[in-house]
């Protein structure tokens, strides 16, 4: 995943999301050490401080925990927390955007539900 510098989302948020995806895809198992800020900086060619900020977000959300002098480790039920968070935060945000867009295109609720059903069958 290449950092999209000119996107409006700050880099450290993108780093946090990348780490979350890695945890979901089980590249980092529970209680396993994650990249340090310097490794992340080297990997994504960004400033270590920005990488550190990304890590601190995840620590605040308790998905990672810090062992003094050793680095950041994946919390035991990190994966569950991320999935749950994704479900009610990011998903709901996406849904509100869809609803706003539907209102602008004056699409009724029923048509919307039909659309979702159709899309469900295709995937």
């Amino acid at each position, binding site marked *: 995943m290449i*950092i999209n510098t000119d996107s409006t989302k700050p*880099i450290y948020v993108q780093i946090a999301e990348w780490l979350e995806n890695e945890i979901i895809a089980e590249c980092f198992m529970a209680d396993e050490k994650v990249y340090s800020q310097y490794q992340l*900086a080297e990997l994504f*060619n960004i*400033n*270590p*401080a920005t990488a550190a*900020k990304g890590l601190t977000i995840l620590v605040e959300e308790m998905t990672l925990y810090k062992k003094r002098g050793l680095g950041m480790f994946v919390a035991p039920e990190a994966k569950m927390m991320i999935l749950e968070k994704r479900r009610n935060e990011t998903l709901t945000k996406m849904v509100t955007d869809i609803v*706003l867009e539907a209102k602008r295109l004056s699409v009724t609720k029923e048509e919307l539900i039909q659309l979702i059903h159709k899309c469900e069958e295709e995937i």
Partner: protein
Amino acid sequence: MNVVNCQKVSKGFQRTNALEDITFQLTDQKITGLIGRNGAGKSTLLKILAGLTKHKSGEVSVFSENPYNNLMVSANSILVDDQMTFPDSLTLEEILGSAPDFYKRWDAQLASRLFQYFMLDFKQQHSKLSKGSKATFNMIFGLSTRCELTMFDEPTNGMDEAARTDFYRALLKDYIAHPRSILISSHHLTEIEHLLEDILLIHQGKVVLHQSLDEVKEYVVAIQGPIIDVERWTEGQEIFHSKNVDGQRLYVVVKNNSKLERARLEGAVIQTLPASEVCMYMTSETKGGIDDVFK
């Protein structure tokens, strides 16, 4: 501990006042971008910090000492700019060879590996180098000194695209390996945005803002929408830039604040801007930018 501490520094040449009142602190081991338009006083400030010129008033301290003509500051800081000259009787190799005398932490391996990587000719003389390779050589010299305060004054002008990206990569990698305070003055912020931790924005000799990169990004927001709505949302706030998009829609850049949350719900299109545009708008004279010229 503050590496650099400037209090109300001013510096003027004859009539023009290059720096009016500069106040900022640089904590150590950070990469800071010194951003500003041409003639904003960037080079003058760097020369003052490097101890090459005397400031008129105010108080400057580098490593908590007055940098002007100070040996300790000169030994621990280096200013890489295009006015760097070396005796033309020495080849580049000899110049690099005589640097360890001066800089205790000079890394000869790094210097020669970078030298070979950028394909510079050892036997060449500094004054005969092209603008690009001179900038490259000065950059290699600056990096290898590993000074505690390394300052670059538009290091990449003259370099080609590939050399520029390589330079930024080399700078980051060396910074990670040996952390130190780096101050880069540059025009094209987009290229070095990923490198920087803090941004020091200077305009007409004054410090406009000195914050971390992300705070700068969230500092200003662009709103687009019908003229009446946009004016309602943004009245009473400082407008940095406003452009009439297509007769009835207005594109306005304004300081970020809570009132805008309500505007978002009313369907306003709100975007954050990349740091370089933020700096550009904050230092533009006219509200409309270049378009005013063609009005």
